[in-house]
């Protein structure tokens, strides 16, 4: 079927050119929109603000829902395929819901040499989930990360904004207690 002309209420101008209708079940908050507009102003090419825009949305919502891709592309005036390309390129832009706290366990060489595997197993045991999964109470999401730049503190990990390391597998439970 021919897509209908873009909904007049969604945009102030009318066009004869039939284009994809963006889902309108997502609205950026004023705060988000302003922050993105401000980032956009920093660059000659609005594309350059894509990552920041995605981070702005993720900061407030924990992840980037589908609708945000279209909303960001509207604000930046670039195709949604470009925004989605950036969003899916970066593993730390979450395109699926995550728990309240995201645990990133470093699995690169230094941490590997300092018994990352035991640490990983401790988390898996403690939380009952594997990598890429979220606990049923929606409290934690467990993810691997390739390097946290904390090789001197291996095995290292990050929960939300906090870097921890070296972490003893035996301390996992008490560590998790800090994050409600």
């Amino acid at each position: 079927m021919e897509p209908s002309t873009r909904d007049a209420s969604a945009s102030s101008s009318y066009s004869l050119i039939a284009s994809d209708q963006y889902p309108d079940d997502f609205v950026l908050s004023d705060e988000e929109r302003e922050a993105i507009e401000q980032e956009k102003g920093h660059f000659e090419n609005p594309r350059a603000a894509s990552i920041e825009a995605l981070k702005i949305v993720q900061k407030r919502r924990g992840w980037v829902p589908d609708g945000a891709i279209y909303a960001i592309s509207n604000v930046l005036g670039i195709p949604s395929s470009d925004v989605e390309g950036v969003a899916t390129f970066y593993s730390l832009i979450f395109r699926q819901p995550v728990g309240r706290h995201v645990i990133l366990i470093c699995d690169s060489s230094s941490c590997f040499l300092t018994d990352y595997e035991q640490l990983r197993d401790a988390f898996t045991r403690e939380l009952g989930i594997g990598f890429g999964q979220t606990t049923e109470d929606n409290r934690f999401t467990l993810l691997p990360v390739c390097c946290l730049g904390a090789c001197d503190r291996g095995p290292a990990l990050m929960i939300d904004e906090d870097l921890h390391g070296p972490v003893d597998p035996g301390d996992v439970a008490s560590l998790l207690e800090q994050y409600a």
Partner: protein
Amino acid sequence: MATIHVDGKDYEVDGSDNLLHACLSLGLDIPYFCWHPAMGSVGACRQCAVKQYKDADDTRGTLVMSCMAPVKDDAYISIEDDEAKDFRASVIEWLMTNHPHDCPVCEEGGHCHLQDMTVMTGHDRRRYRFAKRTHRNQNLGPFIGHEMNRCITCYRCVRFYKDYAGGEDLGAFGAHENIYFGRTTDGTLENEFSGNLTEVCPTGVFTDQTHSEHYTRKWDMQFAPSICHGCSSGCNISPGERYGDVRRIENRYNGEVNHYFLCDRGRFGYGYVNRADRPRQPVMRVDSDDERRDELLDVGGALDHSAERLKKAQRVIGIGSPRASLESNHVLRELVGAEHFSTGIAQQEYENLQLMLEIQREGALPTPSMREIEDHDAVIVLGEDLMQTAARVALAVRQAANGRAQDLAAEIGIPAWNANAVNTLAQGRQYPVFLATLTETRMDDLARERFHGSAEEIARLGFAVAHALDDSAPAVEGLDEATQTLVSTIAEALMTAERPLIISGGSMGSREVIQAAANLARALRQRDRRGSLTLVSGEANSTGLAMLGGHSLDWALDSLGEGDAVVVLENDLYARADAERVDRALGAAECVVCADHQSTPTWLRADIGLPVATFAEGDGTLVSHEGRAQRFFQVYDPSYYRPNDLTHESWRWLHALHTTMEARRVDWTQLDEVTEDCAEHHPQLAGIRDAAPSASFRIKGQKLAREPHRYSGRTAMRANISVSEPRAPQDADSAFTFSMEGYNGYAEPRSQVAFAWAPGWNSPQAWNKFQDEVGGHLTGSDPGNRLFEPEPDNRLEYFTAVPGRFEQRDDAWRVARLPHLFGSDEMSARAEPIQQRMSAPYVALSEGDARRLGVDVGTELTFTIGSHRLTLPLRISSELRDGVLGVPALPTMPAAVNHEWAHLGEETKA
């Protein structure tokens, strides 16, 4: 020039190329994926590695990606070096780790670049034993099939779709070994050139879904060099046929015209050829007992009945067609006499075509080829919505705008082929494109400035820019300040440019707009500027018909009277003039003979119908809007598969009819004789003789093969009709055989190539082998012959009839037809996949008018336009000016309504 030493041999090559381009141009084989001659190098796939040595004494050398290595004079390289070969073998092995190896069920199989490169590299054993990554595919609409598992991540698709064609809805998602090429969600690919993905993709990720419906491998299809009949651009195509059906349209390389790319109307609009309701036998309508019934005739009966009826008539009027070949039109003209011949084109359009022809021959600036359009550094479009009327031209204009990137790069020594570096440097900077159109267009993103207005206003803008360039050009009074500023901006940009290009055409139906374009050209010339002028005509042979000459359709409709008979050639009069008027004219005639390949309203109305060939069943010559005469060749013989199929070329029918009427033998038994006669009678068309080689053309004593040499099943394909295999059809009209027998190689120069194939090169990349240099011209020169002189006479003075301001009325709206790529071409609109993409009928008003009337998008509005009454849902445009009613040029919409005044129906007012 530079000398390079490749595996111990010395070659002269172009020093500005990269090594891959240079080596492929020499005919050397280096496997590659991400590189494409029209899109340059990005060095992504690592497949084209070769060994490069410091000098003659260096024995170790280093591996370089040949697509990213500039040619250096006295360079020593090796393609055959063991380390380079091993490297390439390992590259393809890991590219293939996730590939499903599903060639037997893959539609790319048999013309697959990945297959070719795999074989070339010698990768014939699979060692990867682990799970492959798999993807979910998307529904990309009626044209393109999607099978992401086959992807080897070369990025060609997005580079074509986004960077080259300006598409927005195809992207690359994900990272490392998990990359997905598709849309953000399922849905039809919006770009008008999406079909090229099927050729650009080196494997079977994007395939032609219209071909899927009746799939045949490339080696099992019969091809002929053909010309797209979708618009006046004259793109070269290679239709493939099996069992009497056209199965797909592939691009046919012409270095002067379309080179590697077609638009989607041209590629997917062929379905009308295969329609089940096509007339295949002559038919006569017999009145008996107040009933009109169809009587099928054989060839002799059809000729005898037609001749008898036409001879009885006092006068026979012939109505030709801009969608029929010059030869067919010429034969009709000979049949009825020049004084009774109408071109079948409506008066207004015909006058504009003549005007354009005059400007192209006697104006100030030359007409560029399609390829040359890409080489301009400022473009102004007056009135023509190119994406809808001549899409391939719009794609060429995009390359002109993007040419800025290469020129910026050249200034600091970055070669044009280094695509990523060039784009990074340019940051989207483009050469200026100015679009003056009725309303928004699908190429607005290219425009530096846009101007939307009525035909008068666009013409006034053009006249004013001409005056700004040259004082002696007529001035325009009473322009508002904003327009005046725009005029200065455009004039300055055109003066600054090295090679400005002016584009206009007939789709607005406005004489003044075309004249304004001519004035612009003259003004530039007066200021000693080089530049070009492109004038887009309507249909495949509109320019040819204007050159052939004749009366307009209106003349024919007005003159048909009692005692007259009329022969209508491949033309549905109801698509060009009001039904009442056509009914009246045909009703007045004693006899209506219609020669067509579609069951059109005119065909159904005719007393005798003659089934004629489409481009797929016959040959002929067309003249594109750039004045290029090009021959299309018959693809297959329909009677071979359908013994009762009495389809013949129109010129054959009409010549036979002519000689039957005169009770003499036929003069012409082959196309060349008709072409020759047409050229002799019309000196302006003398050049059509050289549009293609004659039927006696041979290479090494052989005719040229229409079928690949692996063509299979020939002895069995007719077994359902008869087990005895008849002789293959013989082709007297061309140098091609309906067979795999004949020359199909590339070593001998030739310009007419039915299908591109070379040993080891089954994909469209095989065109490399047929070109003087890769991406250049065909070795036997590009097909076609330009009928216009390279430099026009510059005799035309300035046009002085500057139109007045648009007089907006309170009680009426001026009608403007809005062309649609999918729907405005009569034939492709009969093809099913195009119909799926056609807009539903609508009427369009400006935002201001809609507000004034208190109506919204989708409101059903009734308008009367002359005798027409339209009740259609409203679409609103913020770009359309007040006082104009946009009416789409779609099959069900009235044709001759441009510039009429539309009145709001009473019930809507209430």
